[in-house]
């Protein structure tokens, strides 16, 4: 059966050109730190990729460090807050505050919990019904004690685009550093780190048709830094470990392709997203959209169906060849439904029945039409057996 992949926020398939670039480099085995020819060949590929990544976000190449994942980049930045070594480049006192949003990726939320246990004051800023971080609350929370503010650029579940510019101004006004997890934004929205004046920015390769296991962290020149992984001079002493040459080649090619494709794709996906949204709205009643097109990215549509459970929906769709994700508790293996939807104050009956459609470069109108063909029947089937829909309550 032909699979319809609408889970691009989870991960993306390799772009054929990325695949080609990786295969072309597959025999480059040299250690990029070696001085001989094999080493130099690997080094050249890495530095070439660094220039490409820097180019996409208007950074200088030396401001880009390669890491093993977006999660690693985020862990690296947050770990700076607890660093208090007298000889360290960063003199942030241990009691300095960390301010994050309540809808950050778990790699930020979990790391901040750990920091809290070590004595850092962590302030979590909530969101409004549309999933936008409350800037008034952020302004209240940030003080001279704040060393770092971390607000994601685009939320992975709803696609809500945060006012990073404003958040950054609030942080800088109090002398705090500002980090943004941009893994869901890079390659989808135009980004200029110089204009934005961000201190740290996280990029992940596999969200933009690159390989898994590689990402990049932008660190503005002159920003205090302390490595998370120590014991090597790689990446200007910022991240020990022999570089993942092939992964980095893939990331470099992926960002290059994003620069070429993202503008036309944004326009195309905006249309398809609208089609999907309007199609669902006209075919299925008692639903709630968790993505507001006025403030959400073109590729994501999160919608809840009253009276049905998300995992059941997901698996029926999977059976029909459509691959999506859900914020239901049952699907995640945890006991709670999506914390992002809960933070948005979504009525509880909607939180367990959410689906996230995330489109990408391969998504077509025919695929959206097919989803609109099969989805109403699936929702109807589940609602007929539901304790909380129609019939007796």
């Amino acid at each position, binding site marked *: *059966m032909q699979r319809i992949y609408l889970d691009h926020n989870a991960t993306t398939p390799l772009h054929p050109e990325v695949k080609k670039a990786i295969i072309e480099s597959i025999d480059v085995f040299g250690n990029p730190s070696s001085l001989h020819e094999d080493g130099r060949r690997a080094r050249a590929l890495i530095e070439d990729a660094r220039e490409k990544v820097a180019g996409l976000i208007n950074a200088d190449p030396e401001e880009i460090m390669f890491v093993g994942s977006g999660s690693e980049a985020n862990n690296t930045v947050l770990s700076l807050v607890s660093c208090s070594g007298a000889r360290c480049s960063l003199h942030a006192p241990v009691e300095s505050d960390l301010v994050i949003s309540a809808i950050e990726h778990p790699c930020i939320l979990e790391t901040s919990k750990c920091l809290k246990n070590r004595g850092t004051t962590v302030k979590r800023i909530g969101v409004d019904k549309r999933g936008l971080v409350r800037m008034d609350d952020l302004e209240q929370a940030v003080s001279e004690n704040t060393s770092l503010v971390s607000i994601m650029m685009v939320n992975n579940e709803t696609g809500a685009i945060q006012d990073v510019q404003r958040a950054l101004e609030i942080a800088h006004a109090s002398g705090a550093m500002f980090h943004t997890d941009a893994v869901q934004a890079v390659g989808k929205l135009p980004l200029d780190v110089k204009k934005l004046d961000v201190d740290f920015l996280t990029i992940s390769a596999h969200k933009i048709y690159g390989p898994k296991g590689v990402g990049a962290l932008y660190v503005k020149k002159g920003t205090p830094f302390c490595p998370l992984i120590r014991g090597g001079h790689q990446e200007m002493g910022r991240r020990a470990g022999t570089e993942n040459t092939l992964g980095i080649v893939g990331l470099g090619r992926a960002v290059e392709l994003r620069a070429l494709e993202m503008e036309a794709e944004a326009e195309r996906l905006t249309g398809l997203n609208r089609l999907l949204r309007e199609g669902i709205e006209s075919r299925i009643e008692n639903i709630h959209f968790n993505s507001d097109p006025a403030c959400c990215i073109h590729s994501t549509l999160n919608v809840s169906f009253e*009276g*049905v*459970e*998300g*995992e*059941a929906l997901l*698996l*029926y769709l999977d*059976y029909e060849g459509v691959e999506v994700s859900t914020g*239901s*508790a*049952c*699907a995640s*293996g945890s*006991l*709670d*439904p999506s914390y992002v939807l809960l933070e948005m104050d979504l009525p*509880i*009956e909607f939180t*367990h029945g959410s689906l996230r459609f995330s489109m990408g470069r391969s998504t077509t109108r025919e695929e959206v039409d097919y989803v609109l063909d099969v989805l109403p029947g699936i929702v109807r089937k589940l609602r*007929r*057996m*539901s*304790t*909380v*829909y*129609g*019939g*007796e309550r």
Partner: protein
Amino acid sequence: MSSWLYTDKVKDHFMNPRNIMFDDEDFQFDAEGKTGNIKCGDEMIFYLKIDPDTLTITDCRWKTFGCASAIASTSVLSEMIKGMTLDDVRNITNVDIMNELGGLPDNKVHCSVLGDKALAEAINNYYRGHGMEDKVHDAESRIVCECLNVSEEEIEHAVLEGARNYYQLQEMTKVGTSCGKCEDDAKERLAFYLDKHFQINVCVQT
């Protein structure tokens, strides 16, 4: 399609659930029982038709707001109980249901107790309605986990059956596996029964 998340039998019962209560069918029943809570993401109702002379279940229907495992395990349970006496049905455990399904992933085991518990409620409902209060189970036992209707008695029973830590207790009773609010209470009860029956002193993290 590549291997499914669940066994073929789970898939079959999920795709084609048996004995669902459809509102247009006008199914006449003698007892009903409900468990779970929409807030916890799982809710289940069982409807039973019972032969008053033999106290045998002649037919049943159910409804659920739940995931694939909840749908499949309840569907298979609804097939198992037809023709069984109420006393025999009481002895069905979620392990029996899982065996019938050929197993469930570990994190899905708790979904299989929903049907079981709704069924127990329906049986109690029948006894109460037919002057057999003495046969009602768990009537006075305090409910610890409101989401999944887990009583103190069930926690005690699980401890007697081998639960030695909170994880095992959850595996067996599903206590606190939904909203989690009762965790401290359940851990305290666990410690109490471990001490009472086995003189085991545990440090309960709360």
